[in-house]
Structures are given as structure tokens and as C-alpha cells.
């Protein structure tokens, strides 16, 4: 809870938000938006939400920016068309002002920032904090709530990633060779330095990602963050070499297979639970088949399994989405 840093970053964030929408060059506004995301990470760390900050750094600032840049690469960087739409903008400004004033009026009704006695901080969340260790043996409450108490949410969240990948793949994937005027003007440079550097970094990145996935019970991290880092390492491979090299490791069929497999691991653990007599996702019954575990440790182990499923889906789908977006669906060459 550092108010000063929080307030300073929030002011910077406002400036970034306005700049990102003001700049005419799309590449510029994407970069400013990346800065915006990183400042958001700082704010979330100030508010003690390290897991969220971690996810935002990996997903919002990292992969999100890469997606945006890929799209700009395949479309147009500067919008030359100008039409006067001041009236519409003014009207929308009025609408937004109405919404804003409704919200501003409620502010004084809300509990103070940082008030530990506010209803949101006492009712359900207090139960999680007080019982996480006893119920699941997991000190990182975020992980235990994410994968167990509200595991059903997380299953569908993984599903959202799956949907996004399948949707983008179905939309963009094409085997046609594009017309000349649609190919991006410049080809990527082929540099030895970049190859060697990424060669050095990729194994360590993957090792770190595995650590993040596996150590999510005790430190910030978990399936999403680890999965995104793994995905980023594959994206780095595709950027620094070329798509052929990257697709040697994970080709199109394998990508689809693994994306589905990850969700399947998650849902499969849930289904096993009700074949063993519990409710869906009631991991405690898994102690019947896992050796030497009581019902509480079974929850902890099952959470690890679930996180692996999440990481698999997220990794492969981020990589797949990047491939589709940056090559406009041709999967031959991109940025």
C-alpha cells in the first residue's frame, strides 16, 4: 500500500491513455499503450495485487502489444482518411459525461480506499484468507481460490482462450497467396546477433516459465502467467528465426491438438472427480486414486494438474494467435 507511488503512476497512466488515443501514427499509439500497461503493473503492485501485475505484464503489455503490432504490420500504419465527425464526437462526449457523472456521484458512497473493514474485504474474501491453508495447504490464496474455490470460473476462462484461438484460426487461416498490394512492403532482417541472443534466452525463459507454473502454490504465478511466458518464448523463436523453424517444433495440427488438450486436462480432472463420487471439480475425492494423499493434499495436487492444463492451453494458443495474426493467416512468414 504505497499511496504516493500509486497516485503518481495513475497520473502518468491518464497521460498515456490520452496520448495513446491522440497520436495519429498507430504504431506510436500502440507503444504508448504498452507503456500504459506497464504502468498499470506498477499500480497493481502498489495495491498488493502481484498476481494481477504479473499477468498484466505478461499478457497485457507483452503479448497484447505483440498482437497489436502484428495487425498494424499487416494493415496500414497511418490513417490518411479524414472526415469531420466533430458532431458525433461531441455527442459521444455528452453520453460519456452522463455515464461519468453517474459514477462520480456514487464515489462518496463507496468505502474508503484501503479500508480493511469494507464489506468487500470482510465477507467472502476473509473466509478464503483464513481457511486456505486448512482447506488446501496452499499458502498463495490467489492460487487456491483460482484453481479450487472458484475453479469452475477458471475452467471457462481457459475455455475463453481456447475459443479465441479457434475463432482467430477459423477466421484468418487461409491457404491462398495474397494479391501483391496486400503484402507488407518490407521483409524482416535476418540477423545473427538476434539469433544468438534468443538462442541464449529461450531455454532460460522456458525454465523460468516452468518454475512459475510449478511454484504457483507458494509464490505469485501459476498457469496463466507461466503459460504466457512459455508462449512468449515460442513467439521469440518465431520472430528471431522464421516461421518454418518455429513450426518445426509445433506445427498447425499440434497447435490445435494441444490447445484442446489443455482444456481437456482441466475438464477431465473435473470429470474424474464425479466418477469417483464427488461433485464436479471436487478434488478431495481424488485422494482415492492418488497414492499417499489425504483429502487436503489431493486438492493441492489436483490444483497443480489443473495449472498444467491451463499453461498448456495458454502457451499454445498465444503462439497460435501470434502466428495467425502476424502472417494474416498464411502461416508462412511474419514480422
Amino acid at each position: 500500500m504505497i499511496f504516493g507511488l500509486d497516485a503518481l503512476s495513475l497520473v502518468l497512466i491518464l497521460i498515456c491513455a490520452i496520448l495513446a488515443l491522440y497520436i495519429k501514427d498507430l504504431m506510436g499509439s500502440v507503444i504508448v499503450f504498452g507503456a500504459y500497461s506497464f504502468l498499470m503493473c506498477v499500480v497493481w503492485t502498489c495495491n498488493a495485487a502481484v498476481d494481477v501485475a504479473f499477468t498484466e505484464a505478461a499478457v497485457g503489455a507483452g503479448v497484447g502489444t505483440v498482437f497489436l503490432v502484428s495487425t498494424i504490420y499487416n494493415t496500414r500504419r497511418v490513417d490518411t482518411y479524414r472526415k469531420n465527425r466533430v458532431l458525433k464526437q461531441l455527442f459521444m462526449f455528452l453520453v460519456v459525461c452522463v455515464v461519468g457523472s453517474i459514477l462520480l456521484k456514487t464515489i462518496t458512497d463507496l468505502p474508503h480506499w484501503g479500508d480493511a473493514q469494507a464489506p468487500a474485504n470482510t465477507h467472502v474474501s476473509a473466509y478464503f484468507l483464513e481457511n486456505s491453508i486448512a482447506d488446501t495447504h496452499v499458502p498463495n490464496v490467489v492460487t487456491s481460490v483460482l484453481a479450487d474455490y472458484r475453479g469452475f470460473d477458471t475452467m471457462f476462462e481457459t475455455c475463453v482462450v481456447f475459443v479465441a484461438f479457434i475463432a482467430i484460426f477459423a477466421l484468418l487461416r487461409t491457404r491462398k497467396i495474397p494479391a501483391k498490394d496486400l503484402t507488407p512492403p518490407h521483409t524482416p532482417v535476418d540477423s545473427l546477433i538476434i539469433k544468438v541472443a534468443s538462442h541464449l534466452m529461450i531455454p532460460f525463459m522456458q525454465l523460468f516459465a516452468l518454475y512459475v507454473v510449478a511454484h504457483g502454490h507458494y509464490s505469485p504465478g501459476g498457469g496463466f502467467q507461466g503459460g504466457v511466458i512459455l508462449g512468449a518464448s515460442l513467439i521469440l523463436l518465431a520472430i528471431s528465426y522464421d516461421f518454418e523453424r518455429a513450426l518445426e517444433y509445433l506445427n498447425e495440427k499440434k497447435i490445435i491438438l494441444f490447445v484442446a488438450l489443455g482444456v481437456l486436462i482441466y475438464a477431465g480432472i473435473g470429470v474424474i472427480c464425479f466418477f469417483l463420487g464427488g461433485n464436479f471439480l471436487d478434488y478431495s475425492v481424488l485422494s482415492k486414486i492418488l497414492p499417499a494423499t489425504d483429502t487436503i493434499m489431493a486438492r493441492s495436487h489436483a490444483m497443480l494438474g489443473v495449472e498444467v492444463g491451463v499453461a498448456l492451453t495458454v502457451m499454445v494458443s498465444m503462439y497460435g494467435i501470434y502466428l495467425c495474426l502476424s502472417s494474416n493467416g498464411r502461416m508462412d512468414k511474419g514480422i
Partner: protein
Amino acid sequence: MIEQAPILIVVTPLLAALFITIIGLYRPLYSWVLTIITFVITSIFSFITLKKVIETGTIRYMLGNWPAPFGIEYVIDHLNALIVFMIAVVGLIVAIYSKHDVKKELGDKIPHFYSLFTLLVTGLLGITLTGDAFNLYVLLEISALTSYALLALSKGRAYIATFNYLIMGTIGACFYLLGVGYLLINTGSLNMTDIFVILSNNPTSYAVLVAFLFIMIGMWIKMALFPLHSWLPNAYTYAPTSTSCLLAPLMTKVSVYVMLRMMTSVFNYNYIFNVLGWQTIIVSLAVIAILAGSIFALRQDNLKKMLTYLIVAEIGYMVGGAWLGNANGFTGASYHIIADGFMTLCLFLAVGCIIYKIGDAQISSMKGIFTKMPITMIGFLVGAFSMIGVPPTCGFFSKWYLISGAYEAQAWPFMVALLISSLVNAILFFRIIEVGYFQAMPNEDPEAHPKQQKYNEAPISMLIPLLTTAAILIGIGLYTSEIVTYLIEPFMDNFL
């Protein structure tokens, strides 16, 4: 296994979507069969659940075996058991229907289409069943993302229309999320029943009002209530036929159901009608929606686009009925969810058949269609009569309840709007009958190819779903009193 039926309704299509994706890599044509099997199983499970709800009352299913406010729970009461059954049946019908159409329109993307299709239905089923406000958001996003993808799997103008839908849909979902945030900050809970209890005991603050307002606006955007409807007509018109057949009956109706759910089991019904007292404003909004939808529909020459504007008008029926604030109005609104679901489905299926054979849906190109495609037009007529409100189709009964609700609440404009809308529907559909039945085939000699000219029906896998839907429409109409007594009235006993 019977106790697990509520969750199996959702998990079966989810698992099936994954298997369709994997199997589709090697055997793309199996995905159609798999989808049908999935929906048969889902329908069976939802029927079991429906029966159990009628016998024993509300079922609560705790996921992960965590007690209610801490874990996520599924609450199945009389109304949503019925709606879930409807969704599963609509899914099954559209799945059977889609075989030829998908092959024609999508080519090598068949497994992805079916995978997204099943996931969309999964999302809608989950939205209806869940008893957790945030879980609802996640499922809402699943159904939204899949619907964007399915709508955009077409060509041409579909992309920009879907893009607008994506922007509007995200605003809607975000407003809903913001509303849930305001609820969380006031109550500290996400479980709907728990929130209901806490809000009933608390003096109502301005923040609760804002929570309600934002959830409602979010849902109104999602269901395309009149001033917020602009995304719907284009998105549905340029979509692939099977997609619009699936989305038009389900997406908007599920949003209406979420609105009803929020009004009855999250916020206090008494709070909404006696403390806030917005009903006059919102019923007038509904009146405007009905009138505007009807007028825009009159202006269209494209049959599919005309139907999309009729959806906008029908949304007005349901919103108005729910906000009349009496038992008849509420019965009408919830009955109309079911009735309108099947009505819209029937009409879109018929239009799909026409597009499959003729190539477009312009009314002017439908000359002589009654002699050419008689079976399709029988289905179309049943749907049209239901839309107009001719007994014994179900459209008549829902309108009856709505009108008596309006009479009870003395909401004369709403009553007049309902009647005008029926009249407009009659004009619209008789225009098509006029073109299709009384005007001869254009510029071709009927004696040259008598066989081909006389009879050129859509394939059998498209006709059977259409006729089944038509039969269901009449069936629902005949069993109205049973549906109302056994399903809607027990639901209303909870809060009225």
C-alpha cells in the same frame, strides 16, 4: 448420475467441443454427427433436470463441493430449467439443420464451426444455470466471443458488422462487470442468493442503484433494446445461415432471461418497483422499441433483415412485460422467451431454406415460391401466424398474457403498441404471401421444365427441423396452461 445431471448439461457440450476440435483434425465430417449426439445427450439431461425440478423444487448444485457463498453454485429453478431445455432443443434442431448449409458456405472450416457452435450453446446454458454473478460474466464472454466468430465466418460486409457488434458487446459485458463490481463493493459477495439476502436487509444506497442501472444497461445492449440495437440487424443479416438460425432465437432471449434473473433473484422485486419506480420510463422505452422495430421492418426488402428488425420489436414485448410489475406481465414475458425463441427459429429456418435454394432473401425474388417450395412455406406460415398471434400458435398466448398484464397495470400505450405490432406483422407476412402465392414465376415458361419448376425443395435434413419447429410452436400453444401452472407460476411464487 441423476444428481449430477445439472452440471452434465454444461459439461457435455464443453467436452464435446474439445473432442470435435481434435477429431476434426483427422475426420472433419464426423463433427456433424458428434454435435448431434452431444445435443441429444444434453437435451436428455436437461429434460431429466426439468422433471426433477417439477417434482422436488429448486435444485442447488455446489461445484467443487464448496458451500454456497464461497464456491460457485448452480441454481436450477422452474423457469431456468425450462429455458435450458429450450436452448438444448434449439441447439439440436439447428445442428441437424446446419449440415448442407455449412458444407456449402464454409468448406474446410467445418470442425471449427461445430466446435464454436457447441461452445456457444455451452455458454448460453451456463449463463442460464449459474447462480454466481461473476461466473455469469465469464460465460457471457464465452458466448459473446463464439458468436463474434460464428457471425464473421461469412464474407463481405459481415466483418465490419461483426466488428461493431464486438465493440458494442464488449461495452455491454463491461457494464455488466462494473455493475457486479458495485454489488461486490456493497455486499462482499458474488453469489446471487447471498447478495439478495444482504441487499434485503440493508438500507438501499445510491451505489446499489448504480449497480442495478449498469447491469440493466449492459443487458439491454446485449439484447438490443431499441436505442441500443444498432449492432443487431447488420450482424445477423450478413451472417452464415446456420449461425443466424442459432443466434437469433437464443442470444437475445438469454439476455432477457438474465434481466429477469437479476430483477427477481439478485435485487428485490419490491425494491425495483416500489423504491426505484422506473417502470413507466422503461415500459415507454419498450413501447418505442416495439414501434420502431415494426416501422424499420416495414421498410426492408430483404426478408432476413426484416426478421432481424422484428427481433428488436419482440425484445420490446419482453422488456415491457417484465417491467409491468404484475403477475400477468411477468408470465407473458417469461412465456414469450420460450415462444419467441421457437418462433424466431422457425422463421429463420424457413428463410435459410429459401436462401439455400434461391440464393438471396429479397422479397422481390420470391415470386411463385409457394408452388416451388410448398413444405418450406408451410413452416414459414406457421411461424408467421405465431408472430402475428393467431391461435392456437404460442404467439397468441404470450400476447394474451402481455395484453392482460398491460390492462392490469393500465399501461395503455404498451397495449396499443402490442396491437399495432401485431397488425404490422400481419401486413409484413401477407406481403410475402402475396408475392409468393399470387404473383407468378418471373420470365420463365412454366411448361418448359414442369418438374423442375413445380417442385424444388430444400434437402430433407433442412425440412425436418423446420417442420419439427412448426409442430413445437403449435404444441407449446396447446400446452400453455400446463407450462404456466407447473413452471412459471411456481417460479413467480418465490418473489411475488
